[in-house]
């Protein structure tokens, strides 16, 4: 498979100004390829380097050491930076920090306008993006009157309107309530499955990553696990040592196995476990 993002032996240091202590090494020799069209989740506790890695993926931050390539373009090469950012869109945690306009559709138009897209095409993209996130009926509303989940969907539409190949989501649901989380997660999955976008999702919620193609676990600026959800979540003891949770069904299956009950290792979702129990009781 072709990779869209290629991260090669990247280190990143935060300099502490006015402090005698040395720089903080946030990324410590990361190598990672993100395949085109894939859905990759990145998990890890606060301070493990997830967000720093995300910001290195589209040149918002440049590596202290090593290289990041987006479709073969070096993110450190200034001449290509706009192509890089248009290829890799980003959605952040707080939707309120991502709104620039008082009307929803103006907000979506902001990105393409800045790219110099012509007005008819902007109109088409705004409508398409709002439909993609299920917010077309809200196009004339003021963003501050919307719920957190709706605002976050508007932020996503703003990125979709730039027609990126890949979207990096940095804890997009952290500030949302359960309903808002579900709304946003449905959109993320739809963008991957239906629109073929490459997705990188950073999150603390383990139930959000059970459907990903691949999970990357970070700790102390390093990648400590990398595999399919089934491969990662059977290692529940190790994940807990890292301060992470395991999805409920994976944890329950693991506890039952410890009691000598045979449950297949690939079960990580509630529905899968419930089906298995039904067959065996």
């Amino acid at each position, binding site marked *: 498979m072709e990779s869209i993002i290629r991260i090669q032996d990247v280190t990143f240091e935060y300099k502490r100004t006015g402090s005698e202590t040395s720089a903080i090494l946030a990324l410590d020799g990361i190598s990672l390829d993100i395949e085109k069209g894939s859905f990759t989740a990145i998990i890890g506790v606060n301070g493990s380097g997830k967000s720093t890695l995300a910001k290195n993926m589209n040149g918002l931050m440049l590596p202290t050491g090593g290289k990041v390539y987006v479709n073969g373009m070096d993110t450190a090469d200034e001449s290509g930076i706009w192509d890089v950012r248009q290829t890799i869109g980003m959605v952040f945690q707080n939707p309120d920090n991502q709104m620039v306009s008082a009307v929803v559709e103006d907000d979506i138009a902001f990105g393409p306008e800045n790219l110099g897209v012509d007005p008819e095409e902007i109109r088409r993209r705004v409508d398409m993006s709002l439909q993609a996130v299920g917010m077309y009926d809200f196009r004339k509303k003021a963003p501050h*009157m919307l719920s957190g989940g709706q605002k976050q969907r508007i932020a996503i539409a703003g990125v979709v309107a730039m027609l990126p190949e890949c979207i990096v989501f940095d804890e997009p649901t952290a500030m949302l*309530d359960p309903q808002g989380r579900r709304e946003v997660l449905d959109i993320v999955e739809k963008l991957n499955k239906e629109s073929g976008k490459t997705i990188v999702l950073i999150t603390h919620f383990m139930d959000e990553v059970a459907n990903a193609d691949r999970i990357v676990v970070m700790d102390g600026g390093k990648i400590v696990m990398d595999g399919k959800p089934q491969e990662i979540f059977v290692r529940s003891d190790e994940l807990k040592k890292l301060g992470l949770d395991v999805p*409920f069904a994976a944890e329950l299956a693991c506890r039952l196995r410890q009691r000598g009950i045979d449950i297949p290792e690939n079960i990580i979702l509630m529905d899968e476990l419930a089906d298995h129990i039904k067959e065996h009781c």
Partner: protein
Amino acid sequence: MSIRIENLTHIYNKGLSYETVALDGVSLTIEDKEFVGIIGHTGSGKSTLIQHINGILKPENGRIFINDTDITEKGIKLSDIRKRVGLVFQYPEYQLFEDTVEKDIAFGPSNMGLSPEEVDERVRESMELVGLAYDEFAGRSPFELSGGQKRRVAIAGVIAMRPEVLIMDEPTAGLDPKAHKDIIEMLVKLHKMTECNILLVSHNMEDVAEIVDKIIVMHSGKIFSQGSPAEIYKERDRLLDIGLEVPQAMLFMKKLEDRGISVGKDVMTMDEAVEEIEKLLRKGS
């Protein structure tokens, strides 16, 4: 301290086309020292409710008694109320502003006109209560701490006022699983040591279930149900109907029931679920 709320109604943007009835005739009683969880969706009225308890919002209608003092009456000195009812907002770390942890926590008690010695004592005491070692953190900038640590500094700033009622609006929002657990454990310890009332607002019933004395479920500006955690759990299906997130073990039991498997209704925790399912599967094989 006891809190009694009678028939409280609050309307945002009254008279405008988008006026919203945020609280609609809410009545409740919270006993002295009680640890209460307030659960509900965004927009259910949780935050509006708690902002009335220390007088930040004025009700359209209804009365609020704090130890038999009606705080909605004219002439009530709200600064006295706010010394006794501490409110920790959502994302309180955004309110940190001093260049050291110590100064930030000292801000509230200093403004209360306490002596420097007393302020110092309060700072040390509240840092101890939130689990930040004085020697390690007092001189550091709050801005270079981790998310969970920053939040604890902000909480310490409110605790340093020694409130009799401590209200926390979503204190674990946005934290990673470890920091999340730490904050919940801190609350339990805090309640034990200070014996103040704690009102914990959350969308996550999983969090509050095991630690509170009473749960109040809000929905559409009204009290949907209230009682001990065990009483609230009996209403699982009603809670699911309004789309409330219930503890995972409960949700899983529902999935088994939906598949025609009969299970104990009172399964709420992982441990209980393990027991129940082991029984089921052993019986089957």
